[in-house]
């Protein structure tokens, strides 16, 4: 394992120190428990908090700032943070208007965030959770842990962040959050495996001519292992998986988010995006907004994910609203 780190045990804290140094105008970092909060003191509307294991940067710590998250709770690499860290983020940011916790659907994340929410509620705060489970690679069922939360998380955080920023109350923020969750789906594909620092070995083996179709963001297995194919076929297959699941219909308006899993360069990510746009056009679907780049990654894993969000007028307005965070910024 070659990485630019000092010690696997301190990698998250060391990286947060760099984040804090790089963006003193946007974020403030507290350590042990590790929490990233806005550097400004926003008016006390609804607070939007998210978090989860580290290793998916810029998610979530890079999305703290006006128009998006009020607080982010980074766990160890690929490990959910504990409730006390979530509670620290709640205490640091939440007032009478309450807080919405954006939680990716992994048992550990769900349980730790719910525990924190309960403890906060016990202290009289109105804290609710929305669980995002947009990964179509995993069979869904109420009898299982359900689908994983992946790329849709980025779009959800932007949109609810904008709703909170414009002053919506917690009911309204929660309602738009649920609408996003209902209308967003994703699929990922991996060309290589990530290496968790404290493990030191790649998380899985993949042949020189294979891709893992339906990969999760921690290198969890997907639908199937397939031979490498030209980008047009691979991306076409990804669009079909997502569009069929939503399902998308001719005339729908969507946001297309083409995400690099970390190790895939922008050259290829844009290339994939172009194919995705054409595949959607072929289905009569109109892409009205787009996001392209490494926004929810899996360390240095090579691969991409596609996320499609069916848009309505309000979501579009909230997407366009100004945002000012380390990783996503416009209008400010």
């Amino acid at each position, binding site marked *: 394992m070659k990485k630019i780190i000092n010690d696997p045990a301190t990698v998250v804290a060391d990286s947060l120190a760099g984040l804090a140094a790089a963006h003193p105008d946007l974020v403030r970092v507290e350590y042990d428990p590790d929490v990233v909060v806005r550097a400004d003191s926003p008016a006390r509307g609804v607070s939007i908090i998210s978090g989860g294991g580290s290793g998916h940067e810029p998610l979530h710590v890079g999305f703290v700032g006006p128009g998006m998250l009020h607080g982010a709770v980074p766990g160890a690499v690929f490990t*959910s943070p504990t*409730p006390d860290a979530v509670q620290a983020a709640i205490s640091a940011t939440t007032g009478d208007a309450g807080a919405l916790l954006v939680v990716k659907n992994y*048992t550990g994340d769900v349980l*730790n965030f719910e525990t924190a929410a309960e403890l906060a509620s016990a202290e009289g705060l109105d804290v609710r959770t929305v669980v995002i489970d947009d990964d179509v690679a995993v*069979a869904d069922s109420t009898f299982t842990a359900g689908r994983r939360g992946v790329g849709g998380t980025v779009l959800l955080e932007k949109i609810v962040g904008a709703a909170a920023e414009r002053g919506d109350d917690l009911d309204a923020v929660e309602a738009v959050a649920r609408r996003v969750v209902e209308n967003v789906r994703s699929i990922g594909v991996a060309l290589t495996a990530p290496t968790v620092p404290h493990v030191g070995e790649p998380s899985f083996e993949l042949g020189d001519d294979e891709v893992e179709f339906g990969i999760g963001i921690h290198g969890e297995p997907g639908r199937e292992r397939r031979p490498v194919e030209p980008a047009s076929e691979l991306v076409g297959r990804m669009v079909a998986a997502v569009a069929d699941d939503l399902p998308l219909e001719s005339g729908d308006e969507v946001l297309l988010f083409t995400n690099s899993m970390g190790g895939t360069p922008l050259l290829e990510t844009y290339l994939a995006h172009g194919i995705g746009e054409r595949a959607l056009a072929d289905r009569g679907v109109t892409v009205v907004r787009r996001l392209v780049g490494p926004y929810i990654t899996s360390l240095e894993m090579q691969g991409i994910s596609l996320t499609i969000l069916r848009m309505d007028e309000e979501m579009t307005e909230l997407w366009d609203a100004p945002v000012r965070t380390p990783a996503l910024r416009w209008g400010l």
Partner: protein
Amino acid sequence: MGRSGQDTGSALGAVMGCTANDVAAALRAAADTMAEHRGELTDLDRPIGDADHGENLNRGFTALAGALSEAVPDTPGAVLKLAATTLISKVGGAAGPLYGTAFLRAATAVGQAEELTEATVKAALRAGLDGVVARGKAEVGDATMVDALAPAVEAAEAVDDGGVAAVLAAAADAAERGAESTTPLVARKGRASYLGERSVGHLDPGARSTALLLRTFAEVER
């Protein structure tokens, strides 16, 4: 949980209740068990999870032993509550909140009593199970720690007037059988569930750690 300071022997333990110190001793023993089985639990978590269950529990119970070495709270309930909060804040992952909730509910169940009796131990076990199920929504057969804990609670409740030692021994036996039962199952909760059919043939790490915990409590109470 036996031998409360004085050397009362196991027979006495069976009729006498457990003090706060007894509960603390049992939890320290559990920390030793988790340290000893850390590698085994992590290895069980490797093929069907993310290879951290032993690390997670060892981190949490080590912290708990540390906290208990500073001061042992006054009542058994308070000791259990300390276990809950420590595990919740140190274990992380799925197991942290699940075990944490179990201890929290157990603490509530035993209330302010100075000693635990056969009845309160049964109530504590039942409350712990209810907490895990409320939190994790797993049923028996989903290949989780519930497959060890649920039969343990039933076996404990079936013990009639045997004292704390007999209750815990029955629970430990049932938990071990329950843990074994997860091997042929398709996991339906937790990380292993993403594997679908590929989770068959693996012992669930959380079920195994539950069995280890209950066996340790029973041994201390022997």
